[in-house]
């Protein structure tokens, strides 16, 4: 059956039906498609009609038991139908197989006949081949001689062709020359050169060689000419050089020529740059600037002669192109062409020569040496130009421009460094950057300094303004516009506001300067990672010579205020002294350390070299503050002293009238002292007083006058004792501390006021001692002193000081009095209270 199934597959058109039939047969015979054992669940049931263990008896019994008659009838018809169709299928299969078997037998029989015929033909072929081999051997034997001859002939032909090339060479070279196909000419000549050289003893070849030489000389000449002209592009030029090298031109000479040519081109670049540095004028900003740029680039490319007219037709002197533009131009023109020159030069003379026969002649070394000298020379000139340009960069407005320019400058030089590893150029470039940076720092310092001085001038003006407005008001009608001016800018005139605005603006300025300087060390700047910019620039440059120097300058200029003003009549307003003193004190307490911390943080300074410590600066600031405050006390004391002195010196004290009032000058003294007190109070804290300052002025004064003073007068009345000097006073002095008049004061209001009052009263005392008084003169002084006593005690730290000094004044006055009759204390009080 398997065979039948296999053979049935040969017919494709009935495949569908067959397969089905085949499947059913297979089912019938209990085979699955692989021909393996039938599936167990189907096979075990004896009632399965398709199963292998089908038991017809069992099946029949089962049917009979289970089904009704009708069902049995149906079953029966169905069964019959199936049996029939199976029978017919079987018949068909048998028939088909039989047919196939017949046709196969036919085919085999036919093949048997065909093979027999083929055998005969093969035999015939082998005999024929034998005959052919035989013939062929014979023919080749006969043709041997002729073949050798032909080979020889073809050899001769080649030689003749070569000779022809040689003979035609001069003409060809001439033609090449005409057509300017130099490369071809050189190639041709090179090919022929060896042969010509070898056979030069033959006259004909000699002639050719001479001709060629002549032509090649001409060619070389032309090449050289072309080379010299310099109008050609760099590529042409390098081609030229290559050819000349191949023509055995001396390499050194070529190097020189090449370089000198490059020199002239670079030179024109440099001249273009130089022309820009010269303070030549740009008439109408952008247009002319671009015009001149195009012009100068043209000049750079071509002849340098058209530079002279350029400076003539741009007459008005204004600013140059900005530095970034300048450096850009320098980079784009000079540095890039320099790089180009270096590359082509290296390509031509060094890399090329290293491979060829030129290497043996030490040419690369020689060429390299020349190149270094050349680059160094040019770079030096370029650098000098750049430096000149940088030096012109005086304005400190926008530092980023300079930094960017320097960065670009430095970055472009790295290209040179890469091309020319041993060169000193990049180092020099870095040096220039460093110099520019330090110069910039210096400029910032001076800018800060001038800013500081300007701010002081502003403060001075602001301090003068209220006085101005008062003057304007007093002039009234005439000074109307003056008054309006004063009112328009009377904004921050109070001292604390001025102080805070001054210190804030200085601090802002420092911050902005630091920010500007910080650009030098920004990460994206190429030179910022140089060791100089990491270390020394931060510590020495920024911290020391910028920040520290500025703080020192502030202190120093403050001290100068004390010195110059003292001698030349107090040109500095006292309020400014006070303000500066407070500023310096603030610096000492906080600002200095803040600024330095800020600097250190911004610049991440690692101090390799010793730097000025904060404490030194603070000490300096404190010293300046102290000096300023002392000077303030001195100046204010002096102003009051001057009033007192004049009032004592100009009066005739012997012939004065009986006192009815406190003298106006005393009121003025008290007024001025009060206003100074207010002024100082705006900037300085109150300070400490001696404990008993709450006493009323009256009580202490009455003690002072009634007991001590009366006793003193009593002593001087007794004619029996010619002791003019006062014992009590001396005893008092013995036990009281020595008073330093112009001494250092503390940083508080009370101390300052004490200093001023001390100076004033001591002056009063000394002046009184130089005069002679009449009775009423003494009384007037008594009244005045009482008045001062009433008002001054509250300003000082130790009111005993005021008592003591006033005591001395009245005492001295009594001594200097021709008729010492003191006034009644009650009268004095009445007069003073009335005043």
């Amino acid at each position, binding site marked *: 059956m398997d065979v039948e199934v296999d053979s049935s597959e040969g017919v494709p058109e009935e495949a569908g039906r067959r397969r089905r039939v085949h499947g059913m047969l297979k089912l019938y015979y209990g085979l699955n498609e692989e021909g393996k054992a039938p599936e167990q669940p189907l096979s075990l049931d004896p009632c399965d009609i398709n199963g292998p263990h089908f038991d017809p008896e069992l099946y029949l019994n089962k049917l009979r038991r289970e089904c009704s008659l009708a069902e049995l009838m149906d079953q029966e018809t169905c069964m019959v139908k199936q049996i029939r169709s199976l029978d017919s299928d079987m018949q068909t299969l048998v028939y088909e197989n039989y047919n196939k078997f017949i046709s196969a037998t036919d085919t085999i029989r036919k093949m048997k006949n065909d093979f027999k015929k083929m055998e005969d033909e093969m035999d015939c072929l082998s005999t024929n081949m034998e005959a052919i081999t035989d013939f062929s051997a014979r023919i080749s034997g006969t043709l041997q001689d002729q073949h050798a001859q032909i080979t020889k002939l073809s050899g001769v032909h080649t030689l003749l062709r070569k000779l022809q090339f040689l003979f035609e060479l001069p003409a060809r070279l001439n033609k090449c020359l005409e057509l300017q196909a130099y490369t071809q000419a050189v190639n041709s000549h090179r090919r022929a050169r060896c042969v010509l050289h070898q056979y030069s003893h033959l006259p004909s070849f000699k002639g050719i060689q001479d001709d060629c030489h002549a032509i090649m000389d001409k060619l070389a000449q032309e090449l050289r000419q072309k080379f010299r002209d310099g109008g050609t592009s760099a590529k042409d030029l390098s081609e030229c050089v290559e050819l000349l090298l191949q023509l055995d031109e001396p390499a050194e000479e070529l190097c020189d020529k090449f370089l000198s040519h490059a020199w002239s081109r670079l030179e024109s670049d440099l001249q273009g740059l130089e022309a820009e540095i010269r303070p030549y004028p740009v008439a109408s900003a952008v247009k002319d600037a671009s015009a001149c740029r195009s012009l100068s680039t043209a000049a750079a490319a071509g002849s340098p002669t058209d530079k002279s007219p350029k400076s003539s037709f741009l007459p008005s002197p204004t600013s140059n192109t900005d530095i970034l533009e300048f450096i850009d131009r320098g980079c784009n023109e000079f540095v890039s062409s320099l790089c180009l020159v270096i590359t082509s030069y290296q390509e031509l003379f060094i890399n090329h020569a290293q491979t060829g026969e030129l290497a043996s002649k030490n040419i690369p070394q020689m060429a390299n040496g020349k190149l270094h000298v050349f680059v160094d020379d040019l770079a030096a000139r370029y650098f000098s130009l750049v430096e000149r340009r940088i030096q012109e960069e005086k304005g400190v407005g926008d530092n980023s421009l300079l930094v960017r320019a320097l960065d670009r400058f430095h970055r472009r030089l790295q290209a040179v460094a890469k091309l020319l590893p041993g060169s000193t150029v990049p180092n020099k470039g870095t040096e220039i950057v460093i110099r520019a940076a330090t110069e910039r720092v210096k400029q910032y310092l001076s800018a800060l300094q001038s800013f500081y001085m300007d701010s002081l001038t502003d403060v001075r003006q602001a301090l003068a303004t209220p006085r101005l407005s008062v003057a304007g008001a007093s002039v009234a009608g005439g000074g109307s516009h003056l008054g309006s001016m004063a009112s328009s800018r009377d904004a921050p005139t109070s001292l604390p506001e001025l102080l805070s605005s001054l210190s804030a603006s200085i601090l802002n300025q420092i911050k902005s300067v630091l920010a500007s300087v910080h650009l030098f060390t920004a990460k994206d700047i190429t030179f910022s990672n140089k060791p100089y910019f990491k270390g020394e620039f931060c510590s020495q440059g920024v911290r020391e010579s910028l920040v520290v120097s500025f703080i020192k300058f502030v202190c120093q200029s403050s001290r100068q205020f004390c010195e110059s003003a003292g001698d030349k009549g107090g040109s500095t307003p006292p309020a400014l002294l006070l303000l500066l003193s407070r500023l310096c004190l603030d610096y000492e307490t906080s600002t200095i350390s803040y600024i330095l911390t800020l600097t250190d943080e911004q610049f991440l300074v690692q101090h390799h070299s010793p730097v000025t410590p904060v404490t030194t600066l603070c000490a300096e600031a404190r010293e300046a503050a102290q000096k300023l405050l002392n000077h303030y006390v001195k100046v204010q004391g002096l102003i009051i002293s001057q009033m007192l002195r004049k009032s004592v010196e100009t009066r005739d004290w*012997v012939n004065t009238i009986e006192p009815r009032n406190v003298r106006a000058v005393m009121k003025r003294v008290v007024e001025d002292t009060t206003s100074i007190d207010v002024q100082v109070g705006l900037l300085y804290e109150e300070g400490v007083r001696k404990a008993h300052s709450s006493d009323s002025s009256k009580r202490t004064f009455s003690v002072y006058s009634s007991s001590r003073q009366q006793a003193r007068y009593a002593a001087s009345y007794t004619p029996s004792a010619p002791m003019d000097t006062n014992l009590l006073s001396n005893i008092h002095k013995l036990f009281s501390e020595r008073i330093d008049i112009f001494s250092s004061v503390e940083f508080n209001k009370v101390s300052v006021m004490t200093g001023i009052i001390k100076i004033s009263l001591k002056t009063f005392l000394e002046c009184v001692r130089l005069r002679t008084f009449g009775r009423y003169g003494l009384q007037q002084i008594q009244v005045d002193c009482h008045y001062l006593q009433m008002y001054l005690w509250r300003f000082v730290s130790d009111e005993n000081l005021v008592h003591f000094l006033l005591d001395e004044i009245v005492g001295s006055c009594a001594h*200097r009095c021709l008729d010492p009759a003191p006034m009644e204390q009650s009268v004095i009080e009445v007069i003073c209270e009335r005043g």
Partner: protein
Amino acid sequence: MEDDAPVIYGLEFQARALTAQTAETDAIRFLVGTQSLKFDNQIHIIDFDDENNIINKNVLLHQAGEIWHIGASPADKAVLTTCYNRTSDSRVVSCAAVWRMPSDWETGSHESPDDSAHNPQTLELLCHLDDSAHGNAACVLWEPMGDGKRVISLADNHALLWDLQESSTQAKVSSTATLEGKGQLKFTSGKWSPHHNCSQLATANDTAIRGWDLRTMSQIYCIENAHGQLVRDLDFNPNRQYYLASCGDDCKVKFWDVRNVQEPVKTLEEHSHWVWSVRYNHSHDQLVLTASSDSRLILSNMVSISSEPFGHLVDDDELSEGEDNHQEDKSKEPLKDSVVSTYEEHEDSVYAAEWSSADPWLFASLSYDGRLVINRVPRALKYRILL
């Protein structure tokens, strides 16, 4: 080397005027003039016995008025000048006069020292240095190292050169110089230069110092604003002819080279109140004495601007010959200007200080309360200068 303690002498009256007796070169002697409006004023002659540290005093009466300035003749020990205030009819007038001490004041005092206070002798008036046209004498200056025949008095804005004739009994104005200018100008003090054949005078008025040529009586230099405030006193360096010291109310002492008056050569700021007097030592000009109303007296060693800035040159030579190198190096150390010492014996303003004319290492100072203190240069410094 313990320094001797200062010697203090108290006057009964207040006093401002002090001078050394210039013509006396053996005994240490000072003259003090008192100021009293109520009693007769006196001139105290203070003799200092250096060996025993004892003061001897003699008192002469000066009845004309309170003494503001006193000057001793360089030629005659007995002759002196005073400027004094006289009050009459409730008017105060400043006058100047030449006086002679009574010839026997010295012997008298020795015989009865106790009586001298009670019965003092009176000064003998030689002549008045007053001109009806020029009043208010501020000070009288003797010609330095002269023959005692010429004096200058400064009165208001006039400088008067007097010739004393007939053994000083007659005074005649030989020439005058007048300070012209705005306002009421007034000379406050002056000094006759010992250099240039005594032909120059320096005066102070307000804040300016002026130099005068006495031959033509014309101004030769002027230091405007020499001090911030009033100039109180002047002194010439005895050895360097162009050097001048000044002091004033700005608490400063300044040293000037009169050939360049723009800037002082040196400035001292040691005092805490007005400086009333400045005096060069007569032989060692690095030693400068200043007196101030802060009750202090300060002795400074101004080596750098002295005539011997590198120490004693002659002594250097001697050292190099004999002594070893070590000591030589020591002596050549650059000397620095410094305050030698501050004297605080006074309780009141010190208005005058003077070097003794006999002993270059000794000086006196006078405070307003009448205390005269005699001090010496510290021995250590003295030996350093001498050796």
